[in-house]
């Protein structure tokens, strides 16, 4: 069994976060990450958490359990750190650097079961967890791997295969009188490296942007979108004034509620405008509708025409229409999902609940975030191997090492797509080159 780790608390800003680590040999790492060992099992120690260069990431609580006296039955330990997202991601980096793997859902329970820590009756539940989490995993990965993304990854895999055909052919069939390594191979490899670098950069850029639960606020000019927005956030984030069209650009902020993080996007009010800056803001708002998970229409009066216009704008997204300015009196007509007052805070408890309800699907921790984060790190590993291969082939430093780099690069991409592709390498060699005595 490998050493696995997982964030046991939700991946959101909170007072503390807890990481669990389990697997043979994991206790050896405690000394490395805390600078000193821990004496007694099941005892809480306060220690600095160090990165690979010895820098202090955070001051944390650490408890270790000696197998089989632990939940999983293996040696394991827990880290209690401060719950900032930055700290979490640094801790994840340190664990990965130590060669620990991110635990797939159900992994700790599975290990507990395999190590006789839980009974047969509980086994069915374990199967259910793994079964459903794998289904969820498939759902989420197909979501993140939709269409063009998968195509792009598969395309890079194919290009690496093409390089491997030449390199492996040259190794296994060097006496066949075939020209496996023509001069274009180096050029092809460099081209793959360059294209793949661009692709990975793009993914890194998109990652943060796409992993949050996005709520977009739209509405007629001066209906109080920014006030609602600020009330939800609890502080003055967007510029608020009673002059129509104050918010000219898109304002983004993060909100944590019920252990989940939401990205709130405040848009400029929608109206016909001659003001260039403001109309650009409206364009941005319209373009954001596509990326938003929930669109919230904020209104200060009932107008069927206007309401329908926004409903159309939401284009089938989860949509919530709210009436603001309840402090000035109830709406002239029923038909809103929520009645609030940004000024007094009335109705906001209900609003938050209704917003959170839209994200129920993602209840089981932010798995979609992990899936994507995993992709980036696999891409980077793959890219690193391709670069090594390229430098080795140029310096003529052993074709078998180039082959190994290419094999590893290809393997990382297979992991992203989650499919073990059949190794058709030999077949490709035989169909591209005339081999055989």
């Amino acid at each position: 069994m490998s050493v696995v780790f997982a964030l046991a608390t939700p991946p959101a800003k909170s007072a503390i976060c807890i990481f669990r680590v389990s697997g043979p040999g994991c206790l050896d790492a405690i000394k490395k990450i805390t600078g000193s060992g821990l004496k007694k099992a099941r005892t809480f120690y306060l220690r600095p958490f160090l990165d690979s260069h010895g820098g202090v990431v955070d001051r944390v609580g650490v408890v270790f359990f000696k197998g089989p006296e632990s939940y999983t039955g293996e040696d394991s330990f827990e880290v209690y750190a401060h719950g900032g997202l930055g700290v979490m991601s640094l801790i994840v980096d340190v664990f990965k650097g130590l060669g620990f793997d991110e635990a797939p859902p159900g992994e700790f329970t599975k290990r507990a079961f395999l190590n006789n820590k839980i009974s047969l009756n509980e086994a069915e539940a374990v199967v259910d967890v793994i079964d459903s989490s794998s289904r969820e995993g498939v759902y989420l990965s197909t979501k993140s791997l939709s269409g063009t993304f998968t195509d792009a990854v598969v395309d890079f895999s194919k290009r690496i295969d093409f390089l491997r055909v030449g390199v492996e052919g040259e190794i296994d069939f060097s006496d066949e009188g075939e020209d496996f390594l023509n001069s274009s191979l180096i050029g092809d490899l460099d081209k793959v490296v360059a294209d793949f670098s661009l692709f990975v950069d793009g993914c890194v850029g998109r990652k943060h942007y796409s992993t949050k639960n996005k709520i977009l606020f739209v509405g007629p000019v001066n209906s109080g979108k920014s006030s609602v927005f600020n009330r939800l956030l609890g502080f003055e984030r967007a510029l608020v004034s009673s002059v129509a069209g104050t918010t000219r650009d898109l304002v983004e902020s993060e909100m944590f509620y019920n252990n989940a993080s939401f990205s709130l996007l405040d848009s400029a009010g929608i109206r016909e405008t001659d003001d260039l800056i403001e109309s650009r803001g409206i364009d941005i708002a319209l373009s954001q509708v596509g990326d938003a998970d929930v669109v919230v229409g904020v209104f200060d009066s009932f107008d069927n025409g206007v309401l329908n216009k926004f409903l159309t704008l939401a284009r089938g997204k989860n949509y919530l229409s709210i009436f603001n300015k309840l402090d000035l009196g109830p709406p002239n007509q029923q038909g809103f999902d929520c009645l609030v007052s940004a000024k007094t805070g009335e109705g906001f408890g209900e609003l938050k609940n209704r917003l959170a309800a839209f994200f129920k699907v993602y209840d089981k921790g932010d798995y979609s975030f992990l899936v994507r984060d995993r992709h980036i790190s696999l891409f980077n590993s793959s890219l690193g191997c391709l670069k090594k291969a390229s430098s080795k082939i140029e310096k003529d430093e052993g074709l078998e090492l180039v082959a190994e780099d290419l094999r590893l690069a290809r393997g990382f991409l297979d992991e992203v797509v989650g499919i073990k592709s059949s190794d058709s390498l030999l077949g490709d060699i035989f169909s591209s080159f005339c081999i055989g005595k």
Partner: protein
Amino acid sequence: MDKFDVIVVGGGHAGVEAAYAVSRSGMSCALITFEKTKIGQMSCNPAIGGLGKSHIVREIDSMGGVMPLATDMSGIQYRTLNTRKGDAVQALRVQCDRKLYKEAVQKIIEETNIFVLEAEVTDLIVKDSFVKGVIANDKEVLAKKTILTTGTFLNGIMYTGSEVTKGGRVGDDSAIPLSKKLYDLKLPMGRLKTGTPARITMSSLNLSVMEEQPGEKPTPFMSLTNQANKHQEQLSCYIARTNKKTHKIISENTHLSAMYSGNITGIGPRYCPSIEDKVFKFSSKDSHQIFIEPEGIGVDLIYPNGISTSLPKQAQKDFIRSIQGMEDAEITEYGYAVEYDFIDPRTNKKTLETTFLKDFYLAGQINGTTGYEEAAAQGLVAGINAVLSIQKKDPFILNRDEAYIGVLVDDLTTHGITEPYRMFTSRAEHRLLLSQNNAEQRLLTKAYKLNLIKKERHQKYLEKEEAYKNFVKNTLEKTKTKTFVNKKNNTVNLDEKRSISSILSRPDVDENKLIKPQGEEKNFYKRASIEIKYKGYIDKQLREINKNKKQNNKKIPHTIDYKNISGLSNEVVEKLTRSKPETIGSAAQIEGVTPAAINLILINIKKLELQKINA
């Protein structure tokens, strides 16, 4: 009525290696073959080794087998392939004198207690699905274990144009009654084919117009045992080339070829195509290489490697005579395609014992492989495991990261085959760990524990390893220098003195100009340079291997029913049911088996275990 520990049926490379392994462990063994004088016969081209194959032979060598010894007793041309590439992918290829090779094998067998019986095996003696022996020439021969290594003789049929002959090799019989017996058992069987070229007298060729390919000097040895300290007389090979006229003759006659006329249903190896195939599939190439390989010292016969064919005789003669230097070629035997039965190797365990009959092992071409080396490796594995099973000891199974033999057996028993299986280095994902030069370090101690090699050899090996460690510690780590010469022949000055071993880890260093060790230390130095160069990659591979070792070695009980595991897709259930992987590691390698599926299997195994305890 004779009773043996082990019966080996077949005297080819698999059979010989199996019998020799049994005899080395001190057990009694009967080797049953059609004809004594054909034991160890090379039925295809007279060469041993090559990429992926010399790796196997060196592994056999480290375990005290026959093949490397016979190779050195009959080798007439040695060449190391891939000398410009790294150590892991270098391979020794040896042309052998066909007659001397066979004689060497027979001599080795004669010096053992192996009982050689000249007979045809027509039936198996089976009681309650245990094989108790065989019927040979109408007589019962009994044994605790039976190993079948019948090669292409199982229902073998040879084709030359429209001529069809029964048999597995020219002039030999085919084992039809035995193959009928196996068919009666309703085993999953299939048909494969392979081909050979015509044989030509050397005196009828004009070698002076061909490219000469002399052997390597100084001439290396295949076996590292130093048993053969002298080589046979060394000969050259020659390279001839087909031309447009040759291709025209072949194209015009392709429809008459047995393989194109639809007579043959078996699947042929893609890496060993007939010349008809080459001309047809690669029509843009107007010339193909032919290696003219001498059949032996003072033998007026060559093997033209590269033009295997099943064309009619006249067409064979015409196209051969269109080749420069072969205008007057005298053909002594025409090329043919041979089609034969194989048994789906997924029905075997990794010990090569079958799952359909107990005490019964299959090794060699019957499992769908091709090549002497692949056959010999399986013979060795079956022989060792038959003995261990009699001794009631744990089976001997090599992992994919330990040996090419491990890759071979795992590929066969887990993935099965789609064409005659041949070893390539690219089949081994841990290729960098598996050099032909480190086979002893990987296997010698294991072999010693299995009584396959003598104590003196093991002792000598341990001393050598000790000397090597001392050389690294005392010379490479202690000697320090500030300058070295790089591959571009420039002198590089370092900031401070560094040890030789740390300088060797730099990719740009020219190790030949760093220090100049003498004698045995020369080899030590070479080995250390390689190990240091590969270190980063090997460490990474070892980490990967160790990470999942415990889980991968977890045995899957034979009673498991994949259909009952909820959550597995039909496709995965079907694949697992067919391959019957023995361990979690093997299951994980099957295409389409995801980590989630592996988890479900693990949990199911545990459930079965718990139910057993609770029951």
